[in-house]
C-alpha cells in the first residue's frame, strides 16, 4: 500500500484536530527528500522542493469532516475518512513532487491546509503568503478530469421580529413575514435560473432551517438560508439582494462567503494536464462543480493560471463509503509528474524562444 496515502488516512484529522496528521506529513515530506518542510503560522503542513524563482503551489487540505471510519484495504481499494475528500489528492501531490525532485529555476510548494471543511483558515493564511506562477488545488475529480470551476457560497440567517398581537387582528405574524420572504427569494431564483441549463450558472438556494418562538411581547421567526452562487453574482451583490427582499428582517452573515471562480482553460497549465492525460491513455474532460473549494479562497488573490485536480469520486465526499482505488491513485501521481514536466518544458522553451527573438 502507498505509504503517504495510508499514513495520512490513518491519522484521523477532522477540522480543528489536524495536528497529528500535520506533524506526520511534515516528517513524511522530509523523509521523501523535500528541500524543507514545516508547520506554518496557520498550522498547515508545508513542503518545499527547490528554490527557483518560478513557483508552483499545490494546495490540498488535510482536514476532513467529522466521523471516523475504520481504515482498511480490500482488493486494491483503500477505505477511510478523508481518503477521497481530500487526502487522496493531497498525498498524490506529495508523492508527485517527491518523484519530480529539485528542478533548477523552479520551486514547488505542497500545502496540506487546515480547516477547509469549516472556514478555510489554512487557505486564507496561505493566500497572503504566496504569489505563485501556477496553482493546482487538490480535490477529487477522477484522474482523467480537470476541474475548472467551483460555485461561490453565501450563508445567512434572517430574523423577523413582530410585536405580539391577537390572531384576529389580521396583522402579519413573524412567521408569515418569513414565509413571504422565502417565497419571494425562491421566485427570484427561479426567474434568474430560467434559460440557464448549467447548475454552475444558476442561483441555488437551500432553506436549511426555520425556527420560531414567541413570548407575551413579541414573535420571532428565523430563516437559515444557504446560497450557492454563480460566477455572475458576488457575495456582496447577493447580500444586497437579500436586504431588498427581507424588508425589516435582521440579516446575519454566517461563515465566510466566497465568490464562484472559473479558471481560464487555455493556459499552459491546463494544456500540460490535457497532454499528460492523453499521453497516459486517458480522455480528458473539464468539470464544473456545484460545491466550493479552497480554489475560491486563493484564486481571486493569486490570479495565476490554476486548476483543480485529484483522484477519487467526489460523490463519496462526506459519506460513510469514502474509498479510493490505489490504481487510480497511482495513475493520478503519474499524471501530475507528467503534467508538471510538460509545464516546465513549455515554460523553458517559451523563455528560450523569447530570448532568441
Amino acid at each position: 500500500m502507498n505509504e503517504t496515502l495510508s499514513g495520512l488516512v490513518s491519522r484521523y484529522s477532522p477540522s480543528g484536530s489536524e495536528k497529528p496528521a500535520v506533524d506526520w506529513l511534515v516528517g513524511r515530506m522530509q523523509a521523501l527528500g523535500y528541500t524543507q518542510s514545516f508547520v506554518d503560522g496557520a498550522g498547515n503542513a508545508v513542503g518545499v522542493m527547490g528554490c527557483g524563482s518560478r513557483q508552483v503551489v499545490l494546495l490540498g487540505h488535510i482536514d476532513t469532516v467529522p466521523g471516523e471510519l475504520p481504515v482498511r484495504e480490500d482488493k486494491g481499494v483503500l477505505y477511510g475518512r478523508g481518503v477521497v475528500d481530500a487526502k487522496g489528492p493531497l498525498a498524490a501531490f506529495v508523492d508527485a513532487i517527491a518523484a519530480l525532485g529539485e528542478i533548477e529555476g523552479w520551486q514547488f510548494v505542497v500545502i496540506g491546509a487546515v480547516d477547509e471543511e469549516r472556514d478555510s483558515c489554512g487557505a486564507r493564511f496561505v493566500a497572503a503568503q504566496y504569489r505563485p506562477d501556477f496553482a493546482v488545488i487538490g480535490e477529487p475529480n477522477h484522474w482523467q478530469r480537470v476541474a475548472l470551476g467551483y460555485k461561490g457560497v453565501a450563508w445567512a440567517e434572517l430574523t423577523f421580529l413582530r410585536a405580539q398581537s391577537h390572531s384576529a387582528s389580521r396583522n402579519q405574524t413573524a412567521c408569515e413575514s418569513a414565509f413571504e420572504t422565502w417565497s419571494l427569494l425562491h421566485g427570484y431564483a427561479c426567474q434568474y435560473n430560467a434559460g440557464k441549463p448549467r447548475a454552475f450558472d444558476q442561483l441555488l438556494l437551500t432553506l436549511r432551517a426555520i425556527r420560531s418562538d414567541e413570548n407575551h411581547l413579541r414573535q420571532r421567526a428565523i430563516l437559515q438560508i444557504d446560497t450557492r452562487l454563480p460566477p455572475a453574482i458576488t457575495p456582496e451583490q447577493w447580500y444586497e439582494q437579500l436586504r431588498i427582499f427581507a424588508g425589516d428582517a435582521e440579516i446575519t452573515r454566517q461563515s465566510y462567503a466566497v465568490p464562484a471562480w472559473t479558471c481560464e482553460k487555455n493556459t499552459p497549465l491546463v494544456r500540460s494536464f490535457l497532454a499528460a492525460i492523453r499521453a497516459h491513455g486517458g480522455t480528458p474532460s473539464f468539470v464544473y462543480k456545484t460545491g466550493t473549494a479552497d480554489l475560491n479562497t486563493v484564486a481571486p488573490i493569486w490570479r495565476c493560471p490554476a486548476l483543480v485536480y485529484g483522484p477519487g469520486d467526489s460523490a463519496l465526499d462526506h459519506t460513510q463509503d469514502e474509498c479510493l482505488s490505489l490504481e487510480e491513485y497511482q495513475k493520478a501521481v503519474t499524471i501530475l509528474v507528467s503534467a508538471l514536466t510538460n509545464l516546465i518544458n513549455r515554460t523553458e522553451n517559451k523563455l528560450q524562444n523569447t530570448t532568441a527573438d
Partner: protein
Amino acid sequence: MNTVNCTECDAAITLSTGTEVGEIIVCPDCGVDLEVTSLDPAQVSPAPMEQEDWGE
C-alpha cells in the same frame, strides 16, 4: 504552417505560430472547440467535454 481539418465540419484550419499541444482552438467555420493533440504532424481532437458535478 501547420494545417488541420476540423473534426466536425472538415474546414481547413491553419495553426498559428506558437500553437501548443493541449491548446484549445475554435473552428472559424462551425465554431466548435478543438484541442491540438499533436504538432508534428498537426492533429486536433474535439475539445474535452464539459461536465457538471456535485462535490466540494
